[in-house]
């Protein structure tokens, strides 16, 4: 009979929600009671006369009544979601959904199941008496649900008082960009990214909220706790290994980084393993890159150049008819019968391919993530390439509930084939624009022709020179955390970055930089840096109050050892620097710098509505003299979630409304000269010492005082959401190498000084709208728009306010830091085709004598605004996604234009080809109104290489179709047969179209943060196919 009661209970237990059967006692015969206690310790035991008989659990209720819960998870559009993490809350039991979105997990009634999936809202379900739980997860569009990673921990965006933004992961992973930094472009308001070069793997300039320093305005990167300002570390990461990226922008978010926080912080967290079924993912992409330079900007061919030169000879009055003029030119080496297309000879369609594989999985206590990646991209200039191999292993383990441990090791090998840039003879881009088309790269006998461009034949160089930069990098780290009590925990972290960077050059004899006997160069940089950090965390949630705080100390040190070796006289055909050759350079140099810091940070929120945060940090930096080594930095922030107020309940359409504001002081410690130094040199085969530099012992770090006010909003059930921020940051005590008179003997003629202050102000607007949302695999359309402005202004320059004037730039109070300062070009005199310049800034008087024109302010390189617009359309499994990016309003200056727009002054120099603009727009006869002067052979009035002027300053505004993706997620049914849980194919294009506002500009306007076009490899457009599969 007693067993019947028990049976009944079991049935009841299964039928009714858990709560109703707390402490149910079934009276049985012989005074034996079966007690079911479901409060905390779910247990079942037997009492006899109120005496507990079975101390040991007679039967764990969990075991007894545990069921397999099954279900299927879908997204709102009806597609199944594989890989959703399903966890029993407060336990180590977890599972993942399979390829059909199905899961199975053992759990008991009353347990809470947590369903989480990247990009979707996390959902918690209490298990009642059912064994099937099907769910539709909502895409996580409410940004306030996001978690911001700070490098010292994580924080709910809802509780943040600072300005910080996450980069959506899919923006990084499916994009074939050699480096992560490029993926930031156009995706995060307030982050300005500009590439200097199309060399695959070249780090672009990244600036957060403008340029805040003359010397080093790089943001700080934090990768799994490791801190560096070296963009190359980021470039070496495999984007597929990234789990999350947060960009910290204001003082409240960055002051915890003290002396390195002034220029913003980019925090990166890499992927970890997950418990449950082992998942294998593979992705591949394959395509090619081609030049974005429009065909119409190709340099002149021989007949065009001939036409121009003949006109030049006639204009110069040397000859008086075309025939004689041509003879004159031919006598001087012009060859009308050769037409070499240097553009075609130097460019290529570069192959692009990428393969990635990752395995993740683990048990309850131990989880792992292992990945391997291969990336290969050829540049659009011949013999340029980046090949990179990555592998990463991350393991985390729970020793006990209290002690957790994790370790990561990542290895990267990257090999870049490079070609020299800027003004170097060996620069192939310079060759494209400069070498005359009537010169052949080959002699008649088929050998290479070296009789031009100072023996630099770009075709021979592409074929025979080796210029290879290799980097071997290990990033490794280990962390230990110990939960002392519910409130207190300790964390310890050690991180290291070891890199061996090797630049190998091997130039054959007889041409180019190889000089007569051949040359080989091996430059190495051995870098080791480490970070050691210990933290104490305190967090408490009491009723409505919540406090999270941490404090700790941190040590960092970086050491470099450089060694350079150059030898000459190597037999051709031997790659290595042969023994017995003539060594010409053999030297090493060491460098080190370090930081030590203590810090404290606290965040308090009341009822999730009133927020407050504060941080303080004391840094010691090795870059300053003893008296100025230490600095204290701090921040304070407030926030108010208005939507959480009861009075807002009636306003239904507002889902989120939060005002936040912060103020704080952080710093920047660029490397400048503190000491007066003698340096080693050599003379007559013996070492020597010479006076190298004057130093300033009084310099100190730069101070950045930043104020931010922002608003986060979400309306209409999150159909519209985003944020608006306004900031002002004033950087004082700016360090700068201030020019000094030459008599002081400093070679660069500069001394470091904390000379002044500058201010960046700007607005950032971010808005995401879900324009069309339909369930059941229907149409979806989402738009993201971000817009930012940044105005830079020099507020104070030393005590006198005297401007710093350079040959083409000026730094002066009231102007932007990147201000061009050149004689103002006044166009062409229509009567005689002479170039005219304004005499001064009044622009009332023009002169045809360049020397009479004064340098004046032309404008600056900082764009008026940056904007990114992304649209995503999806219909069933098909998704179309595209992004436009614009940087609008900044000027760019091409310092090499004075060579390519020679107006005939370069005559028949082998590097005397002329730009297409000169050809098309030149003045030809009286009355012609144009901006390009008459072409005169041997011109001295205009076109000389030293005649820099605003003629070569262009409007750098552009709009670029940065990305287009068309993807198709294969239906589950069809891929199931292949044993796959997910499969996606896509075609994608980068930089497919660029609109350039200035017709005169013949190069890509993306010219780095300085706005100077430097004959670098142009940005390429890439088109490729991709495939992602998960087993």
């Amino acid at each position, binding site marked *: 009979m007693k067993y019947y009661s028990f049976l009944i209970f079991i049935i009841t237990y299964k039928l009714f929600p858990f709560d109703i059967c707390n402490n149910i006692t079934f009276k049985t015969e012989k005074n034996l009671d079966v007690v079911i206690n479901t409060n905390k310790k779910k247990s079942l035991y037997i009492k006899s006369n109120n005496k507990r008989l079975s101390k040991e659990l007679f039967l764990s209720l969990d075991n007894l009544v545990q069921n397999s819960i099954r279900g299927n998870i879908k997204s709102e559009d009806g597609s199944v979601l594989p890989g959703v993490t399903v966890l029993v809350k407060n336990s180590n039991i977890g599972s993942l959904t399979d390829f059909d979105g199905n899961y199975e997990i053992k759990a008991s009634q009353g347990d809470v199941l947590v369903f989480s999936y990247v990009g979707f809202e996390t959902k918690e379900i209490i298990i009642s008496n059912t064994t099937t739980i099907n769910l539709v997860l909502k895409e996580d569009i409410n940004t306030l649900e996001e978690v911001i990673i700070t490098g010292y921990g994580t924080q709910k965006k809802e509780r943040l008082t600072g300005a910080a933004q996450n980069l959506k992961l899919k923006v990084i992973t499916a994009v074939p960009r050699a480096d992560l930094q490029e993926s930031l472009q156009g995706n995060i308001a307030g982050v300005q990214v500009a590439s200097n070069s199309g060399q695959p793997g070249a780090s672009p300039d990244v600036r957060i909220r403008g340029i805040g320093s003359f010397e080093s305005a790089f943001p700080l990167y934090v990768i799994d706790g490791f801190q560096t300002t070296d963009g190359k570390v980021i470039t070496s990461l495999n984007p597929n290994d990234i789990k999350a990226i947060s960009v910290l922008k204001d003082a409240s978010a960055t002051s915890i980084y003290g002396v390195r926080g002034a220029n913003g912080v980019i925090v990166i967290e890499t992927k970890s393993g997950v418990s449950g079924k082992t998942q294998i993912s593979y992705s591949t992409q394959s395509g090619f890159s081609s030049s974005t330079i429009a065909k119409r900007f190709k340099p002149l061919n021989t007949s065009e150049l001939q036409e121009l030169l003949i006109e030049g000879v006639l204009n110069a009055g040397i000859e008086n008819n075309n025939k004689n003029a041509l003879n004159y030119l031919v006598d*001087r*080496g012009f060859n009308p019968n050769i037409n070499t297309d240097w553009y075609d000879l130097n460019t290529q369609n570069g192959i692009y391919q990428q393969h990635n594989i990752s395995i993740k999985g683990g048990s309850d206590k131990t989880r792992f993530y292992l990945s391997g990646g291969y990336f290969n991209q050829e540049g659009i200039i011949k013999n340029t390439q980046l090949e990179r191999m990555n592998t990463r292993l991350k393991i985390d383990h729970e020793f006990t509930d209290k002690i957790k441990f994790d370790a990561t090791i990542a290895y990267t090998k990257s090999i870049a084939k490079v070609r020299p840039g800027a003004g170097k003879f060996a620069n192939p881009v310079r060759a494209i624009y400069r070498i005359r088309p009537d010169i052949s790269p080959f002699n008649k006998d088929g050998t290479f022709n070296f009789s031009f461009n*100072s023996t630099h034949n770009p075709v021979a160089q592409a074929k025979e020179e080796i210029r290879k930069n290799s980097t071997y990098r290990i990033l490794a780290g280990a962390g230990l955390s*110990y939960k*002392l009590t519910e409130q207190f925990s300790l964390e310890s972290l050690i991180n290291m970055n070891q890199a061996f960077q090797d630049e190998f050059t091997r130039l054959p004899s007889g041409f180019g*930089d190889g000089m*007569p*006997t051949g040359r080989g160069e091996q430059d190495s940089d051995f870098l080791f840096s480490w970070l050691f950090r*210990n933290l104490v965390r305190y967090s408490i949630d009491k009723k409505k109050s919540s406090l999270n705080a941490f404090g*700790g*100390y941190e*040590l*960092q040190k970086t050491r470099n050892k450089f060694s350079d070796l150059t030898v000459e006289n190597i037999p051709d055909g031997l790659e290595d620097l042969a023994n017995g050759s003539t*060594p*010409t350079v053999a*030297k*090493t*140099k060491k*460098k*080190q710098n370090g*930081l*030590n810091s203590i810090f404290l940070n606290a965040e308090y929120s009341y009822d999730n509505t009133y927020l407050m945060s504060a941080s303080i940090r004391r840094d010691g930096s*090795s870059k300053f003299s003893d008296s100025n080594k230490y600095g204290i930095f701090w921040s304070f922030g407030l926030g108010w979630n208005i939507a959480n107020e009861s009075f807002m309940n009636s306003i239904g359409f507002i889902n989120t409304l939060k005002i936040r504001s912060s103020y704080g002081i952080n710093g920047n410690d660029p490397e400048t*000269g503190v*000491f*007066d*130094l*003698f*340096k080693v*040199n050599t*003379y*007559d*085969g013996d*070492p*020597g*010492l*010479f006076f190298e530099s*004057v*130093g*300033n012992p009084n310099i100190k770090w730069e101070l950045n005082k930043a104020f931010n006010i922002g608003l986060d909003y979400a309306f209409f059930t999150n159909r519209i959401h985003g944020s608006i921020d306004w900031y002002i940051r004033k950087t004082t005590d700016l360090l700068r190498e201030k020019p*000094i*008179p*030459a*008599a*002081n*003997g400093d*070679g660069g*003629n500069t001394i470091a000084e904390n000379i002044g202050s500058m201010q960046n102000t700007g607005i950032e607007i971010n808005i995401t709208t879900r324009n069309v949302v339909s369930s059941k695999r229907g149409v979806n359309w989402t738009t993201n728009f971000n817009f930012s402005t940044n105005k830079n202004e020099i507020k104070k320059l030393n005590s006198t306010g005297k401007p*710093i004037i*350079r*040959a083409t730039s000026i730094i002066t109070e009231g102007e932007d830091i990147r201000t061009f300062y050149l004689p103002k070009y006044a166009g062409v005199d229509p009567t005689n085709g002479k170039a005219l310049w304004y005499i001064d800034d009044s622009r009332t008087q023009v002169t045809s004598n360049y*020397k009479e024109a004064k340098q004046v302010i032309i404008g600056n390189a900082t764009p008026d605004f940056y904007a990114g617009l992304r649209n995503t359309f999806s219909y069933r499994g098909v998704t179309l996604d595209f992004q436009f990016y614009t940087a609008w309003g900044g000027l760019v200056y091409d310092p090499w234009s004075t*060579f390519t727009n020679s107006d005939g002054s370069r*005559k028949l*120099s082998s*590097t005397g080809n002329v730009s297409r603009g000169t050809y098309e727009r030149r003045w030809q006869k009286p009355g012609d109104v144009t901006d390009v002067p008459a072409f005169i052979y041997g011109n*001295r009035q205009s076109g*000389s*290489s*030293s005649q820099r002027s605003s003629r070569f300053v262009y409007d750098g505004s552009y709009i670029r179709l940065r990305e287009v993706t068309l993807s198709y997620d294969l239906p589950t049914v069809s891929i199931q047969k292949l044993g796959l849980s997910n499969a996606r194919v896509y075609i994608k294009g980068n930089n497919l179209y660029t609109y350039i506002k200035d017709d005169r500009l013949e190069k890509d306007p993306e010219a780095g943060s300085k706005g100077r076009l430097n004959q670098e490899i142009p940005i390429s457009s890439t088109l490729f196919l991709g495939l992602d599969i998960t087993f």
Partner: protein
Amino acid sequence: MKKYILLLAVMTILSCEDTLEQRFSDSVDAREAITDINSLKLATNGAYALLANPAHYNRSFVLFPEIMSDNAFIDAFDNTGRYLDFDNYTLTANNVRVNETWNMMSRIITTTSIVIREANKVSFPETVTEDVDQYIGEMYALRGLAFHNFQLLYAQPYNFTTDASHLGVPIPDFELLGNGANIQELARSTTANVYKQITNDLLEAINLMRVGTNPAKMDRNAAKALLARVYLHMQNWKEARDMAAAVIDNSGKKLLTREAYLASWAEDSNVETLFTISNKETDSTRKSSIGYFYLTYRDAFATDNFKDILSDTDIRKELYPTKDVVNLVKKFPRTVTKDDNIQVLRLSEMYLIKAEAHAQLNETVDAQQALDVIIQRADSNTIPPSTETGQALLDKILVERRKELAYEGFRLFDLTRYGITFNKFKQDTAPISIVAPSNKTILPIPIKEINVNPNIANQQNPGY
């Protein structure tokens, strides 16, 4: 709990200072640069390396006076773009070569001055006194040389005004140099003061130095020879004559024979070398060398106007072989190793100085004799002794200077100190007539200097 906090505290204390350590691996604090004879020797040697810079003797300083005069022009058809504005006489104050040479001259003056000053603070053991004097003397000599070259390039010649009161180059306060706390913004001194500084430096150098054995280093004879040159520019004919004679008579140097003459240009030094800039194959700036410019870049050639003054029997004509239609300059012929030494002072110049000074002093016979030594040495035919007198003799001496010292950085200064109008030849266009006195035969003060130095801002050379 307590033990963790304790551990934390201990580790914080232990590990603080190490990370903030500073370190120099290839440089030394200026205040500690010279502490003993070895460091003085190092610093002395280091100053010479600055002379070897392409902005000075290794290229610019020996090139400017040639492409700005009637001796050389730049390849109009195929050039690397270097020095075009010098060839075109279109220099502006923002020319990079003008700037780098200005800086380099200043830098030599600074380094030598700091070494002199710091060495004087050290108490050396008596056993090394002679070495110390020699090293300090070398620094005085290099400073004198640098000031003179600086002056030649950026200021009008000594005789431009009767009392040399026209603007020269700046003279720093030597005591304040080498210290970032004392940045100097100097106005230009008068030419007279600069020459006073130069002669003082060289006299001090002669006083301190001994006769050396390494022609790559300054010694007493080299300083005397330099002083003879300086006196010549000052038109201090007597002193110039006596100094040059002293070097000819007492230095132990001998003129090269005709037979040895050609080959000597490929040698590090020869019997008549008083001072040469040493270049080694292991030095780093060889692609920026003057030899590379003339023979590998082939950016500049000798003018026909120059080559034509050399008779066919003149051994020196062989230094300028004609290839295609141009005359190569082969005074720096080591195209493979690119480590030509640059002859700064050689005995031939002393004969020519002596001749010129004698002629100016109307000591005609002495002048003719000194001149004929150089003329007759060069020519394989027997050349009768000179008979010219007065201006004709002087003219002949100047022509011989042009022949003998061509492409060594003399020609422009010979033209300007005599106020001679000349043709600046161009390869494919009409010559430019440079009418003396010209504003354009001296370089502008670099715009960078003008921009950062209020005291020099109004002292730009006229015409720039």
